């Protein structure tokens, strides 16, 4: 009953005209940016962060959340219509969405996407409302050692399963941790690594790091990709509504996708892409329509979209109740809250009830907005995709510049963004993912603080991290994930080597014959 009362109070908060307006702006802008191929939810959140500083914390977080799930939804539009995933998690939607578009069923695929995203979002919202209070109660028993270990787990989970491999992922986390030490040490007041630059006394701003690595870095990478990869398909948009068979075929996958997505979204380090992939694999196993998967099965669109959106909502569970983000987007949410003076953690449910339940209720309102906005606006998003990218990217670069400049009205921030943009682009070229760096950067100060506290309380005994049961358990799980990540990296590197040797042998044989 308490949940219903809290949810009703949250709903009243969201239904305030200002919150409602910014929820709409968030959802709309998120969809708009998500539709653009190559620019994901992280870049979208980075672009909107400076604007959020001018808003009330609840309104700001509702808007950021709207951008987040709006971008995830928008990403599926480019996947279906052009076979170019707008966001990494929507790449699974390409498998059946694009064949549906080629068969003249693009409208149906987009319609099912909207319904599945809505269904998944609602499932994720319910899971969040039910699980969060219990998890927060458990987390109230946490001391500094447990917090350190949970942050450590979050960092390992986010890096060990990164696309570039565990070694590179962990290296990026370490780089992020080191970067987070730039500026004044809050415990001792000493200046660290400021190079004598006064602007670096307060450290590097989260927006600068995020805009540089994701905004500028992704933009440079996407210019070439969009020049060569964009093709226009002759697609029939007259058929929008699914028939009875398609409705029936989508119902089960939406439920299953929603539940799978809720589980994976709440686990740090996995996120929407894993949720979509697992949802698709499970559906392919259980579906009666297995043969049609990959050829335009409606279930193949419903399940990843539902899983993806439900994971987007449940990703907020560890972020808000434990203060541990599972992804770079969630790290930015934590950063935005901290800029507003709110420390995420178990006390957020008691000290910032309005914010927490307002956010939960905003998922309902925001998903309804997505549904209402997107079904009639499918044609508009289609036309947006037809605007040449050569007109889009100069406009995006201007928005990035203005967004960064608005932080302090100081051009030093632009130069720093440029530096991080160059780093972000080069990191992509060398297969270093920027996401673990950002997570390390956000969690670094918290990790250092909890480490210091734990050691102070244990009188310098580092065994405290292993002796306390919850902390020891979390570190054991971290070690297992780390071992798995390193084993996968080693296996992949051996496979690559074997393939190279094989190619060399075949080319030598070919040359000699």
């Amino acid at each position, binding site marked *: 009953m308490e949940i219903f009362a809290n949810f009703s109070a949250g709903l009243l908060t969201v239904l305030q005209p200002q919150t409602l307006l910014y929820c709409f702006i968030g959802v709309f802008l998120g969809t708009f940016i998500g539709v653009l191929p190559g620019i994901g939810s992280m870049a979208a959140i980075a672009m909107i962060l400076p604007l959020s500083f001018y808003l009330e914390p609840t309104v700001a977080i509702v808007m950021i959340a709207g951008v987040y799930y709006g971008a995830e939804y928008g990403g599926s539009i480019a996947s279906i219509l052009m076979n170019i995933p707008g966001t990494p998690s929507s790449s699974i939607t390409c498998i059946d969405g694009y064949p549906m578009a080629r068969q003249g069923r693009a409208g149906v695929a987009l319609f099912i996407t909207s319904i599945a995203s809505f269904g998944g979002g609602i499932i994720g919202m319910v899971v969040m409302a039910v699980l969060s209070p219990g998890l927060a109660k458990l987390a109230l028993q946490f001391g500094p050692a447990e917090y350190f270990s949970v942050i450590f787990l979050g960092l390992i989970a986010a890096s060990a399963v990164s696309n570039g491999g565990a070694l590179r992922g962990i*290296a990026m986390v370490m780089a992020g941790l080191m970067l987070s030490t730039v500026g004044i040490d809050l415990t001792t007041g*000493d200046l660290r*690594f400021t190079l004598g630059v006064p602007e670096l006394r307060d450290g590097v701003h989260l927006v600068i790091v995020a805009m540089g690595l994701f905004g500028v870095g992704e933009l440079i990478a996407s210019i070439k990709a969009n020049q060569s990869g964009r093709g226009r398909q002759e697609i029939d948009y007259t058929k929008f509504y699914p028939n009875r068979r398609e409705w029936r075929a989508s119902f089960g996958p939406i439920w299953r996708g929603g539940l799978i997505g809720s589980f994976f979204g709440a686990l740090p380090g996995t996120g929407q892409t894993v949720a979509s992939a697992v949802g698709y694999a499970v559906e392919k196993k259980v579906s009666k329509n297995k043969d049609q998967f990959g050829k335009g099965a409606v279930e193949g669109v419903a399940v990843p979209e539902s899983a993806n959106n439900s994971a987007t909502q449940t990703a907020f569970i560890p972020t808000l109740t434990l203060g541990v983000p599972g992804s770079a987007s969630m790290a930015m949410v934590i950063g935005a809250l901290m800029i507003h003076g709110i420390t995420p953690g178990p006390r957020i449910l008691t000290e910032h009830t309005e914010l927490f339940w307002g956010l939960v209720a905003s998922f309902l309102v925001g998903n309804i907005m997505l549904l209402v906005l997107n079904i009639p606006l499918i044609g508009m998003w289609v036309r947006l995709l037809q605007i*040449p990218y050569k*007109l889009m*990217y100069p406009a995006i670069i201007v928005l990035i*510049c203005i967004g960064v400049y608005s932080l302090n009205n100081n051009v030093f921030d632009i130069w720093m963004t440029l530096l991080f943009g160059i780093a972000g682009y080069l*990191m992509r070229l060398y297969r270093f993912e920027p996401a673990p760096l950002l997570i390390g950067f956000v969690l670094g100060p918290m990790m250092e603080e909890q480490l210091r506290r734990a050691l102070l309380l244990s009188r310098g005994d580092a065994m405290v991290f292993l002796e306390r049961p919850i902390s020891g358990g979390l570190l054991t799980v971290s070690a297992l994930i780390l071992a798995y990540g390193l084993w996968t990296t080693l296996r992949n590197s051996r496979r690559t080597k074997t393939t190279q040797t094989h190619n*060399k042998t075949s080319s030598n044989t070919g040359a000699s014959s």
Partner: protein
Amino acid sequence: MMRIELENGHRPTLGQLVERIAGASVLLALSIYFMVGGLDLGLGNPFRPGTGAFPFFSGLVLLALAAAILFQDLQCTGITDRPDWVSFGAIVCALSVFALVTDRFGLLPATFLTVLTASAPDRSLPWWGKVLLGLFMAVLGYVLFIEALGLPFKAFRGG
């Protein structure tokens, strides 16, 4: 002993070798910088870790990881995609133009010139198209950020 060679069996040129090890080398340099800085700041003791302890030990872990990555990169190709230096240059110049112009001439000229610079290498867009896009973005920036959001930007400044 480890043998360094390309996929076709040839030994890599100096340029190719530099390309392979550049990423890991930057990480190595970064880790050493933070370790040395951490030592200067002071490591403290286990009971009360010093200001430099966290960056020092983070640097130490990164040093080990960077060495492993360097070893890994020597055995495979350095970069996966060919870099798009034209787009890279255009975006770098566009951000630089914004940084140089905003404080001297104001937001509108900065926006206009940033758009022109970013779109300069694109030959498929005619010059008047670039000018129109620049003007459109300048006006949009003024209406959205100065008029609607009330951000404290100057539309024009006196040089």
